[in-house]
């Protein structure tokens, strides 16, 4: 391990120690912050998995360039799943429907208890984990090596994307939507999946461009700048996300039903409107910047655009998940800081470790060669 990786890892462990102290002081506040950070971390490998499978179906030189960072991101999925274990031990502290007396719940939530109960919730989560582990095994195995054949895994990726779509839907409904069980939004799962893809792709671009100019990498053509190709893909993913996020707002705003619009009312007051403006501002900045050819071809420009996109996604996850969980005002935001540092440090250390040593993922390669 390099010093850089060790430094990140130590920061992460220090963060985890603070998290343990936070859990001892106020388990409910700590778990709320922890869940938001864990969902963000899991979003990165899930988004990377989506892109790898889509690229396995479509091919294209853009995917060859971003394949290595995406593979390393996908391989961190087991760690991101482990981050959910602390929440699993005390579901009742986070989810209003878990462990509560049904009589105290509102009528609309009581009707949903057939789906929202702890046993079924755990069963679904285990199902999602099983699907994802099989998918990363397939995706990592078939994308290993320098010159793997594209398109041979078409059928597996096709079926895989269907299963992945189901798993992400179940996951986002269970772990994100059910924080406010009276709220319903059918577009939310797709909204989350699009956000994950945006984040994973932005991070992949940052990792690629962090050290060197993107134009000289394998996959670059003579007359088309690879950095521009990648930035255009990012713009496409970003527009998908904007479309879905706006559609949820439009439909709910149009209906103006109490249970639904409440989700936005909570997120538009008590300081949350600033997070909303921040996330809108970052995404507008990224969108406007992604229209400029000069910025997309410049090294610093590409880095800045991808960073703004990733920061916008971060604000988006925070804005969607945190409001119902934050009880004690801005002071308890220190829980968030230690949760982000702890999990982020651990995850980043593993990600950089795997990215720099792709051969450490050889387990996947060997398995695939035999199967």
């Amino acid at each position, binding site marked *: 391990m390099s010093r850089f990786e060790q430094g990140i890892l130590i920061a992460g462990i220090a963060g985890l120690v603070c998290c343990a102290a936070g859990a001892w002081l106020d388990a409910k506040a700590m778990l709320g912050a922890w869940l938001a950070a864990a969902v963000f971390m899991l979003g990165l490998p899930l988004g990377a998995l989506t892109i790898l499978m889509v690229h396995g179906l479509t091919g294209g030189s853009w995917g060859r360039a971003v394949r290595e960072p995406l593979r390393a991101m996908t391989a961190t999925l087991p760690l991101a799943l482990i981050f959910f274990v602390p929440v699993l031990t005390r579901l009742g502290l986070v989810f209003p429907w878990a462990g509560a007396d049904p009589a105290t719940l509102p009528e609309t939530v009581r009707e949903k208890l057939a789906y929202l109960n702890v046993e079924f919730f755990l069963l679904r989560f285990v199902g999602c984990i099983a699907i994802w582990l099989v998918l990363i095994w397939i995706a990592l195995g078939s994308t290993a090596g320098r010159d793997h054949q594209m398109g041979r895994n078409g059928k597996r990726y096709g079926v895989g994307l269907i299963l992945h779509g189901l798993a992400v839907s179940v996951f986002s409904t269970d772990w994100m939507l059910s924080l406010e069980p009276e709220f319903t939004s059918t577009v939310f799962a797709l909204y989350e999946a699009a956000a994950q893809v945006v984040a994973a792709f932005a991070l992949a671009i940052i990792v690629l461009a962090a050290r060197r100019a993107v134009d000289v990498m394998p996959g670059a053509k003579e007359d088309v700048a690879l950095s521009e190709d990648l930035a255009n893909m990012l713009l496409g993913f970003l527009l998908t996300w904007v479309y879905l996020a*706006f559609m949820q707002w*439009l439909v709910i705003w*149009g209906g*103006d039903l109490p249970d639904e619009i409440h989700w936005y009312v909570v997120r538009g007051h008590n300081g949350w409107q600033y997070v909303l403006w921040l996330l809108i501002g970052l995404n507008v900045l990224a969108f406007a910047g992604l*229209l400029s050819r000069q910025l997309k071809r410049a090294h610093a420009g590409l880095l800045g655009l991808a960073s703004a996109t990733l920061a916008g996604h971060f604000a988006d996850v925070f804005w969607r998940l945190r409001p119902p969980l934050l009880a004690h005002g801005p002071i308890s935001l220190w829980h968030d800081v230690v949760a982000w540092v702890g999990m982020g440090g651990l995850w980043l250390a593993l990600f950089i470790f795997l990215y720099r040593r792709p051969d450490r993922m050889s387990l996947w390669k060997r398995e695939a060669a035999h199967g």
Partner: protein
Amino acid sequence: MSLYGILAVFGEPEALVEAAGGMRDRGYRHMDAFSPFPIKELDQILEIRGSRLPWIVLAGGIASAALAYALILYSVEIDYPINVGGRPLHSWPPFLVIAFEAGILGAAFAAFFGMLAANGLPCYHHPVFNAEGFGYARGGKFHLLVETADPKYRKGVTKGQLRRLGAESVEEIEA
């Protein structure tokens, strides 16, 4: 009939690039080149600017989105204010969708017509087609045109310079 310019024919793309560079060094600026495929080096020699079309497309998109939004605002606020389910007259979320669609349409129109205008189309005839050896059917050679509008242009001198730069043949073109 007046003279439009002088057309020199070259057998190889390298010869064309070299000759264009040589003519530029001699101070010629009103030149154009014709070749069966794009030659990158010529962009700089002939001072061919990057495309301005993206700005036209952006302007077209923004203008038509603004127009559509203004039209909706006019109709709901001034022309026919009507209460729909208690929503405010200025219901921006659904209006944005229509303005966005109109913006896409305007950008597409701006791209199509802007491309035609930037290329000087429709153009039914161009003086270079008056040249004897011009046209892909006659062998797909590489041509350099020096217009009479160039301040350095002197009929005999220019012809001689083009010959010395390796032109296979040099031809006067009627406008």
